[in-house]
């Protein structure tokens, strides 16, 4: 089984030089730590920053420079700043090449639920609905099961939806899956995990790829 950092490392292998990428809160944020050396990827923060750098040193902290998680950040050389409407023009207009976000549930037809649990305090969807509507290239990064041990890969989402028919790839602690033709296709399996383990942990329709690989994580 992969750790959260290993999930992030595997996602980082998908990055390409020159891409603009939006990383959500949680596991997706960790991806920034594993951008391959020599590769230039610009991170977009939907509150209005392209070219987001690491957290500041104590003496560099600027209250006017935060990320979408409201954390203090820095800017890399060549960064740019803009309004929320310009930011979502980038997202909705398909100018961001990759979005990585977390989820509570994903279904075999590519629906995603990640913003609301009935009966619990609703905090809001923030930019999640815009992000899933904006780009074709979305990777969902999440643990395969919830804290109760129930599968988060379902035939149909049970929670209120964030978007429909928009997710094509999911990376969990058990493996990497594509979503095609109404099924999860197990493309890569995590080291030390059996196909049987994945089957047991997946409630939605699962197809094992005929060219199934074991995930390579250094």
């Amino acid at each position, binding site marked *: 089984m992969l750790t959260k950092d290993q999930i992030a490392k595997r996602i980082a292998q998908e990055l390409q030089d020159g891409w603009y990428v939006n990383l959500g809160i949680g596991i997706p944020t960790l991806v920034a730590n594993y951008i391959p050396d020599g590769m230039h990827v610009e991170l977009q923060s939907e509150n209005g920053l392209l070219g987001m750098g690491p957290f500041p040193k104590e003496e560099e902290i600027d209250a006017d*420079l935060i990320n979408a998680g409201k954390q203090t950040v820095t800017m890399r050389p060549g960064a740019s700043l803009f309004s929320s409407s310009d930011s979502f023009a980038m997202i909705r207009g398909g100018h961001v090449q990759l979005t990585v976000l977390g989820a509570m549930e994903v279904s075999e037809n590519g629906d995603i639920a990640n913003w609301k649990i009935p009966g619990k305090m609703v905090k809001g*969807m923030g930019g999640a609905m815009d992000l899933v509507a904006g780009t074709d290239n979305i990777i969902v990064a999440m643990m395969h099961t919830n804290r109760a041990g129930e599968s988060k890969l379902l035939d149909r989402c049970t929670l209120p939806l964030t*978007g429909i028919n928009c997710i094509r790839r999911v990376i969990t602690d058990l493996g990497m899956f594509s979503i095609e033709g109404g099924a999860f296709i197990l493309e890569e399996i995590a080291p030390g995990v059996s196909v049987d383990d994945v089957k047991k942990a997946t409630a939605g329709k699962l197809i094992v790829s005929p060219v199934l690989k074991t995930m390579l994580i250094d």
Partner: protein
Amino acid sequence: MNKVVKDAHEAIQGITNGMTLMLGGFGLCGIPENCIAALVKAGQKDLTCISNNAGVDDFGIGLMLQQRQVKKMISSYVGENAEFERQLLSGELEVELTPQGTLAEKCRAGGAGIPAFFTATGYGTEIAEGKETREINGRMYVLEESLTADYALVKAWKGDKYGNLIYKGTARNFNPMMAMAGKITIAEVEELVEPGELDPNQVHTPGIFVQRIFQGKNYEKRIEQRTVSK
């Protein structure tokens, strides 16, 4: 053309019970601190507040919530606020959750004289319930109506007496669109200068969108998540 008012107290004259306000800011970054303090002091009630977030318990719009001044919030994310949660669960407060990009565009469109627009955001979700949908070039979209406000309260870094504004860092966020969408827009700035002192090439919000401007004071600029690298 002189739009300068003395302070926040003078700036908010005319804001009365039941009005709709826009307040700039993302989290606590780029919020109109002085105007919020003046509203808390003045005590208007039954306000509808359009703002991406609702502050925290003891800062930002949270201060107005403590005084029960807000009837309805239109926001994309309202976590980090226990008083907000209490009022929402008890039915004292109404909230209309709106996707962040849709909220930004609703303000921009409102200020630009566009009454509604189609967006793919939220199609197939509960956000689209009751709204017109349409297929355009093979994809489904939701019709979202734009927003305007009786007063827009924005915060900028620098401004001149004609209302031209320059923002700093990510404190820009919703401020430029809200400045456009207010029937009366009040800008509070950290530094108020004479016309001609701002480089016209650097102006983010042209003064035409601003009716009142003043130099704010005692900016706290509270940080929600102070994160540092070692």
